[in-house]
């Protein structure tokens, strides 16, 4: 059984059919990429699976259990993490606190204990801070452990989002264009980082425009165009698919 099964998934915004009857399966432990031209529905697909949008129709199953229409915080309890294409960093907090928020579900969230700062909570919070610092080093943010979030450059914020998602200790992570807006050197760093994440046993789903990175990292690739599934398969299969070539190059193959 696949970890994630998506069947006939659709969402309509008024007359716009952003995602139409898309089906695919993702096996545990792989890197799965979703590609397609701008406006193909990649981010919408992420928003559907991570609960930000409710599907108009279709089914999403995680480990065989239906999760379609569940709220993002419920999905978080099932080990689903994500990052955002347009950054969603809490600029009112420090960098490390942003990462610590990622550990929310693993910490004691009791209001009374927090107000009294009971020793158990204090100790666990110190551990959470150390874990967060460790994660920031893992994603290459050694220099920003003591930084404020609003004082960090764009490329670092991209990685801060990844660190926050990893703080959830997820089983499945959705990365929405982790290399967008980065320079070639930073892109290579993110490429290595995604590989490290996958090697640590987390299933990675990736939306990315950098084809070199996609081909290099992905075990399987889903191609979307105008909200529909155009092709799916290994990098080699997708690259040779005439529909994909037509969509990308506009050729009459």
């Amino acid at each position: 059984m696949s970890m994630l099964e998506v069947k006939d998934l659709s969402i309509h915004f008024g007359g716009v059919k952003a995602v139409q009857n898309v089906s695919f399966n993702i096996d545990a432990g792989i890197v799965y990429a979703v590609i397609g031209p701008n406006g193909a529905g990649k981010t919408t697909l992420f928003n559907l699976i991570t609960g930000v949008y409710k599907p108009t129709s279709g089914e999403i199953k995680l480990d065989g259990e239906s999760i379609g229409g569940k709220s993002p915080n419920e999905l978080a309890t099932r080990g689903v993490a994500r990052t955002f294409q347009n950054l969603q960093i809490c600029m009112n907090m420090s960098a490390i606190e942003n990462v610590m928020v990622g550990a929310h579900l693993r910490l004691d969230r009791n209001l009374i204990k927090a107000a009294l700062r009971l020793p158990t909570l204090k100790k666990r919070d110190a551990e959470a801070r150390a874990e967060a610092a460790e994660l920031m080093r893992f994603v290459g943010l050694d220099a920003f452990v003591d930084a404020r979030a609003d004082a960090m450059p764009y490329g670092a914020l991209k990685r801060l989002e990844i660190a926050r998602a990893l703080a959830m200790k997820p089983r499945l992570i959705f990365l929405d264009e982790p290399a967008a807006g980065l320079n070639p050197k930073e892109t290579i760093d993110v490429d290595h980082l995604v590989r490290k994440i996958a090697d640590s046993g987390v299933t990675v789903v990736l939306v990315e425009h950098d084809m070199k990175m996609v081909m290099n990292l992905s075990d399987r690739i889903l191609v979307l165009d105008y909200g529909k599934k155009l092709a799916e398969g290994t990098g080699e299969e997708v690259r040779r698919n005439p529909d994909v070539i037509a969509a990308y190059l506009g050729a009459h193959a």
Partner: protein
Amino acid sequence: MKKNVYLGLYIVVAILLVLPFVVPNSFYLDLVIRMAINAVIVLGLNLLIGFAGQISLGHAGFLGIGAYASAVLPTHFGWHPVVAMGAGALVTAVLAGLVARPIFKLKGHYLAMATLGLGIILNIAIRNEAQWTGGPDGMPVPTMGLFGFELASDKQWYWVVALLLSVSVWASLNLIDSPFGRALRALHGSEVASQVVGVDVVRYKVAIFVMSAVFASLMGSVTAHYVGFVTPNLADFFHSIELVTMVVIGGMASVYGSLVGAVLLTALPQALATFEGWETVAFGSILMLCMIFMPKGLVPTLAAKFGKGD
């Protein structure tokens, strides 16, 4: 990297310990007590407005519930003042929860409107139920006593209020730097980001709203017993706005800003009394200048200027 987070608290406690011995007369002691009471209310309100990013325009209504619970229940039903105070807080908590839960399920700034309406309704109820509340004239409040010990003199009240303020500052500092507090700040910073890491946004908004309302209710009871008399003005719309102004002037999302805002806005009308008739104009002008030149509020602006964290 971590500075001593309690440093400011120690300074506050030190000031509170010295103050009663340096205030020249009972007029100033009274002023200081009212500053401290307001500071506790504003601390609670700042957790809601500054940290969680939600607004309440009806907090004086909750204050009114507490104040009138402490006036009406012991006077008409012979309840013990402490029980009455608790009952006021409980009613406030239930009411705040009932109002907040459906509203927070909507997106947008509906809370401001709902709390505005709620505050006005509560004030009208207090004014109209004259047989219980004395109507617009208000009513006297019995003295607060506990274990045969009566709280009567201003000196005694001062120490009670100073203790409440110190504990509130301590608890607020603790709360902000905890998983609960970080979740609150995160949902302010990016609601969708906080949701995807597992924060149940509605629950947290309701919790902090109820908590800040209960703060207001309890301090309403304290005000009632301290002053010995309650009037509906305590619960009116202008008082709600005054409290929000204290938060904004002092500094949103700043614990010490709450204190500064409460102190300044409690003292300012007294200081401006010499302007005779022009004091409202002067008051308004000062607020406007503050907002133009220090939109983030006094404490955050000054902290940034002198390179200190808050």
